[in-house]
């Protein structure tokens, strides 16, 4: 066993990059609902997130300041008139990850806004969760997000989930200049004022995307949630270079022309973990003996638990995020400010790409809060999110290898992910071509009455959603030469996905080197907390 002192080798404490040397400490990485502690080859570039930015000292004061000093609009109080109809729309449970400790910043914002509305004689207020085609949030989740007071006062009649399949609940506005359908929640469309309360975790979120996708329906989403638009969007994280965002912006501008929307965007830092799992926020070089003890203890406990219990445990770990900024006003100038703050926290400069990139795959994605990270979601995390956390230049070279660490278990949650099951077993076994899947099956799934019913009355993602998950990975699939699932516990899940598998990380690295050459460069992305690489070539 290596003496502890050798694990504390000298390194640049300020740097986000550590080059692995002989004697560097082993790296802790997520392996689904477990941890792997792995020695990486000498020369491996380990990329760490920035440390958390300091939060604003008084969140309520920051919110009030933003409401009174909005960008490109009058202050909120000046927009209010007694008797007017107001709809507050809020981001759903897909953000942030992991869910934040209470009070959720959406609750804090809404409490202040509702007080202001009441003082201004505005009684006709609805709060709508802008879940688009995501699953409906459960009553318990809704209560947790908004707090008991708001929940008791508004649910179920005035605090509810958006229903994209309610034929009476959607209204179509004029089409965009590119003939895109603009459909919007009827209550929001008929309101005198829509107030959108957002949490911004990555630059992909917020802006026109909030109302334009959160409160719309399948027909409108088809304009940009399709394989070609995804292929034409080299980075989802850089809105100006993304066809996806261009389409969303066109739709958003039509909405802004018709409906008065006051955005309240919030940014949070990346403090995702605190004690007893605070060691996940540290570089391994900074681990204390107690941190190592906690890690080993946790690994031991996890090894004795059944998987559902591990999930339960992880989903009970809430993030102590701090609010770093609150911005309000009209869509575009507000979002500019938000993006600026977002990049401050999440952007990590990196020199050059790598032949091989290793991602430790966590237990959670935006689409499985309180549920299972099924194979399709492992795919979307690997090739959709983690691959795309960049500004146009991926960390992995064209034709390179991505290694993920995940068991790739063949498990699906029939309540949350009912259409995923059919998509994975029936469609993906026939073809992995996103265009073929889109043309042949997407509409059939989207209109399947069973899936529509599960979406509207249960807590399932919409029938079209598994397709979006596959499209999301399109750029990654086109770019990489190979994906290797290290630790995959079966052959068929990686095979259906078109991936290779390996028993261990070492074996995966050996396979990747066999593919890319012995001198292949390797990067390990130390997530979570998440961050985006700004690759300079």
């Amino acid at each position, binding site marked *: 066993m290596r003496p502890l002192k050798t694990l504390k080798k000298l390194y640049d404490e300020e740097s986000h990059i550590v080059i692995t040397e002989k004697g560097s400490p082993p790296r802790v990485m997520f392996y689904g609902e477990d941890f792997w502690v792995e020695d990486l080859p000498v020369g491996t570039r380990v990329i760490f997130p920035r440390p958390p930015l300091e939060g604003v000292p008084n969140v309520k004061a920051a919110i009030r300041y933003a409401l009174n000093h909005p960008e490109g609009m009058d202050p909120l109080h000046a927009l209010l008139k007694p008797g007017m109809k107001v709809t507050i729309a809020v981001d759903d449970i897909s953000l942030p990850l992991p869910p934040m400790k209470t009070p959720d910043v959406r609750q804090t914002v809404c409490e202040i806004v509702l007080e202001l509305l009441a003082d201004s004689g505005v009684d006709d207020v609805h709060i709508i969760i802008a879940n688009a085609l995501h699953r409906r949030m459960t009553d318990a989740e809704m209560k947790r997000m908004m707090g008991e007071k708001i929940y008791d006062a508004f649910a179920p009649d005035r605090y509810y989930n958006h229903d994209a*399949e309610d*034929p009476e609940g959607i209204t179509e506005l004029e089409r965009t200049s590119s003939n895109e359908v603009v459909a919007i929640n009827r209550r929001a469309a008929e309101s005198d004022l829509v107030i959108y309360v957002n949490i911004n975790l990555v630059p992909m979120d917020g802006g026109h995307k909030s109302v334009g996708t959160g409160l719309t329906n399948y027909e409108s989403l088809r304009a940009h949630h399709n394989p070609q638009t995804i292929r034409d969007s080299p980075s989802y994280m850089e809105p100006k270079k993304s066809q996806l965002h261009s389409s969303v912006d066109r739709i958003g501008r039509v909405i802004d022309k018709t409906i008065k929307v006051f955005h309240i965007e919030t940014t949070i830092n990346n403090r995702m973990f605190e004690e007893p799992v605070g060691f996940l926020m540290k570089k391994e070089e900074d681990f204390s003996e107690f941190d190592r003890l906690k890690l080993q203890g946790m690994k031991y406990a996890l090894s004795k638990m059944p998987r559902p219990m591990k999930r339960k445990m992880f989903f009970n770990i809430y993030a102590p995020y701090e609010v770093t900024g609150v911005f309000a006003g009209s869509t575009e100038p507000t979002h500019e400010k938000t993006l600026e703050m977002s990049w401050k926290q999440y952007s990590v400069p990196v020199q050059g790409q790598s032949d091989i990139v290793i991602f430790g795959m966590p237990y959670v994605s935006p689409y499985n809060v309180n549920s299972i990270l099924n194979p399709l979601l492992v795919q979307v995390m690997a090739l959709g999110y983690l691959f795309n956390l960049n500004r146009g230049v991926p960390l992995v070279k064209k034709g390179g290898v991505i290694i993920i660490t995940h068991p790739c278990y063949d498990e699906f949650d*029939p309540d949350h992910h*009912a*259409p995923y*099951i*059919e998509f994975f*077993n029936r469609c993906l076994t026939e073809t992995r071509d996103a265009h073929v899947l889109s043309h042949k099956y997407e509409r059939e799934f989207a*209109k*399947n*009455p*069973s*899936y*529509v*019913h*599960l979406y*509207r*009355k*249960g807590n399932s993602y919409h029938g079209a959603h598994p397709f979006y998950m596959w499209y999301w990975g399109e750029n990654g699939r086109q770019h990489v030469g190979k994906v290797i699932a290290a630790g995959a516990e079966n052959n068929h899940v990686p095979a259906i996905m078109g991936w290779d598998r390996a028993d261990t990380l070492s074996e995966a690295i050996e396979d990747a080197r066999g593919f890319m050459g012995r001198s292949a460069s390797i990067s390990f992305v130390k997530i979570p907390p998440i961050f985006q690489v700004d690759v300079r070539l």
Partner: protein
Amino acid sequence: MKHALPQEHTSKPTGKAAFFDIDGTLISTNVVHAYGYYAMNEGSLPGILKRTLTTVAQIPLFGALNLVDRKIFNEYFYRQYEGLTEDRLLTLTEDLFEDVVKPAIFSKAKDLIDEARRAGCRIVLVTGALDFTMRPLARHLGADDLIANRMQFVGGIATGKVIPPIIEGANKANVIREYCETHHISLMKSFAYTDSASDYAMLTVVGRPTAVNPDIRLRALARSYNWPILDVR
């Protein structure tokens, strides 16, 4: 010399339908409730007493037969109708619907049917219950067709025999297949909804089976075959 096939055999069926079982799937009552209502409104006091008491006494037997074999249950159960007049039954049908069936419709059942209709499906109710009993329900739900058992009447009096084939189990699959052929509907594109494993054949004959409020056996089957499971209660 080759003969051209008739047109109906050469073109591919394009339509789609949603086939719904009724008892336990769309409503919480069953055939025994319906007969109980007729028995209690038979018309004469001795008749009411005789039929009601006989029905109550036989409930355990009905339950047992239903578990053993749905076909035998149906044949035995429908014998209870023997002697009831057709005009009396038809008169009571609307009252039965208003008093018993309508309040028993599951809260989300109509939504499911509306969603199937919006998806472009013909709505077809397929049930082991008697046709005249379920006609008002079919009308209320806006169904396009009702496939149900038909009681034999001779001289306006029920004989207690159902005109074959009895709609249950494997026969439900047969009538669905025939219906699709007649109406140029694709079985593969069609949906079936039921609550009971006894309707396994009905589920497997279509391309899109769904378990609704499933019993334990059907839930296990649905899990095994990755069929969606709905709860419309």
